[in-house]
């Protein structure tokens, strides 16, 4: 129903540590597979057929992790695989120390080295996991795409979308959009800690029934632009609504604030916005449950309230007046 992609420009400096860990995996894995006996002697464990086999297996695992880190755009999972591998190695070395270590000092040194690697893997794993969750570096731009199919014809959807003042009905982070001229509007968004972010925007392209583009005017703290396109869906299923948004995240403290505002989970946020749009158009209302009384809301999905009816003050807090 929805598709999404997200790109950030600028280099990925946070992936350098991951690449380093990938090289480390190869450097460790290749000798383990090719010369397990030597590695055994180096770390001071008994060198026999069984321990060589184990060493080869550990080496293969390291090589797999190395290949994984280099071949995937998001090496996060492989870094976590390294964390698991390190933990296993520590357990093996621990049992070697207890039973069959020939040279406990060497085994102890190897244990220290693995513990160090584990620490680096953990740091990198945590950092990559966080950045994958959608946080953005100030100074970069974020581009978001999403699509949804709505069972209405495109002229009707175009008309709802052309009325920017209705955006806050389904765009969760917007507080108010007011028209200031035929092609101009003033936007007000909710910021963190009760702050507001405001800017002016203009329509840059308007093809009735097909497409609308807009961009922020000079002076906006966060430069942004967007395009929405309406394409007939095959088989009389209505209209595909494709949206593209682009935000330039400025540097400095404003940038950090803006990154937080648009950046916590921008991909999910825009998808949720499109779902709310579809709900309003198709059903006339926003689906609300006891666990998610505000309706589709990213924050709420990560932290639902219990699924039992809300008391009156809680209902007021969720902005619900009642529909009866």
């Amino acid at each position: 129903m929805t598709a999404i992609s997200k790109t950030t420009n600028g280099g990925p400096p946070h992936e350098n540590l991951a690449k380093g860990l990938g090289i480390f995996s190869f450097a460790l894995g290749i000798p383990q597979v090719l010369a397990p006996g030597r590695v055994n002697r180096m770390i001071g464990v008994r060198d026999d057929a069984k321990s060589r086999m184990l060493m080869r297996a550990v080496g293969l695992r390291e090589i797999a992790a190395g290949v994984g880190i280099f071949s995937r755009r998001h090496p996060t999972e492989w870094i976590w695989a390294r964390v698991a591998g390190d933990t296993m190695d520590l357990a093996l070395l621990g049992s070697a120390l207890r039973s069959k270590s020939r040279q406990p000092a060497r085994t102890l040194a190897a244990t220290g080295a693995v513990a160090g690697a584990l620490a680096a893997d953990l740091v990198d794993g945590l950092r990559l996991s966080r950045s994958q969750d959608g946080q953005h570096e100030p100074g970069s731009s974020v581009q978001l795409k999403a699509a949804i199919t709505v069972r209405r014809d495109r002229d009707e959807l175009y008309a709802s979308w052309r009325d920017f003042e209705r955006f806050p009905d389904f765009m969760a982070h917007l507080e108010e959009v007011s028209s200031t001229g035929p092609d101009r509007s003033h936007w007000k968004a909710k910021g963190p800690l009760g702050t507001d972010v405001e800017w002016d925007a203009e329509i840059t392209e308007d093809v009735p029934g097909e497409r609308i583009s807009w961009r922020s005017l000079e002076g906006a703290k966060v430069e942004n632009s967007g395009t929405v396109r309406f394409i007939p869906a095959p088989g009389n299923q209505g209209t595909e609504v494709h949206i593209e948004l682009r935000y330039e995240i400025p540097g400095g403290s404003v940038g950090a604030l803006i990154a937080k505002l648009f950046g916590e989970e921008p991909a999910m946020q825009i998808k949720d916005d499109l779902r709310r749009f579809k709900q309003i158009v198709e059903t006339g209302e926003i689906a609300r449950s006891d666990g998610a009384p505000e309706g589709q809301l990213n924050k709420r999905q990560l932290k639902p309230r219990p699924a039992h009816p809300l008391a009156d003050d809680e209902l007021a807090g969720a902005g619900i007046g009642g529909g009866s």
Partner: protein
Amino acid sequence: MRATVWAGRNKVEVENVPDPKILNERDAIVKISSTAICGSDLHLYDGYIPAMRKGDILGHEFMGEVVETGRGVSNLKLGDRVVVPFPISCGYCNACTRGLFSLCENSNPNASLAEKTYGDTTCGIFGYSHITGGYAGGQAEYARVPFADVGPIKIESDLEDEQVLFLSDVFPTGWMGAEMCDIQPGDVVAVWGCGPVGQFAIASAYLLGAERVIAIDRFEYRLKMAREKAGAETINYEQQPVREALREMTGGRGPDHCIEAAGMEAHHHNPGMYAYDRVKQAARMETGRSYALREAIFNCRSGGTVSISGVYGGFIDKFPIGAIMNRSLTIKTGQCHVQRYLRPLLQRIENGDIDPSFIVTHRMSLDDASNGYETFKHKQDECVKVVLTP
């Protein structure tokens, strides 16, 4: 009001919570007269469905009286007696218009959560975790029913609650399990699991023209119900090897269609096999134990249909895709699109083709819900179905 809430794994409590209110124009409030515990509630009770929160009201099989309606509900009046289907469905989106009500694109406010888990969203479901929307359930005195202009079916005849209550879920679920088999004259259908859904799958297979239905379970009292009430031939898998018995009973062909009505907490007669999957499930390395499903696939006649009505929450292990591919088996499944079946099945009940109340073994007060869950879970006292009265 009083309501049955999930209080952690293997724990439910009856608590006082605020009364539900109309939140949207298409809502109604129903004062519940009868509500049942479903086998799928046990998956929540046992902690195998993720995204449960303490305080969630359980229950998705309920009926009662309309006591309040939103402005957008014109088809229901105060005082109407209604059965509420478990899927919450808008009735307008592309899924609903194709009759796929349990795939409603608009009713799950936690659609992103469901999309992360399942690849795309499902409909909202009453009392069935936050993945299906975080809606309060119906094991309570009252429930808020969204899209009340589409879901609930009015009961205008003088049928007892227990005769129509199961239209909310288990009767249509069993019916859809049989319907998915596309039964032709002469077909033999095998049903794994003789809980409520299995019983209705057996009865429905006969109503849809099956020549014979063979039911498989390990509880003699459930097999007895399948024989005496639903008319099946039976196999107790703890006493006889299923494969040999099925081959013998079908002249070596195997059943033409197999309905899996056991789900992700199935049992296996071999303690080693059971332990293997039980441990993997406990370690969350798989979320379902799928013996019944594997057996259904392996034993189905080549070219036949395996219809899955049992509930699965995530991933299973050792899925015999080779048997499916090489023997041209068709797999069909889905949460029941209940709204599609309400009218025709109510008609069947009114005609006297079936009286669904035969599955009820226990009647309790809502206040005894905790006892009801334990009795049902451990199959104590020959339990098949518990109905609670608020």
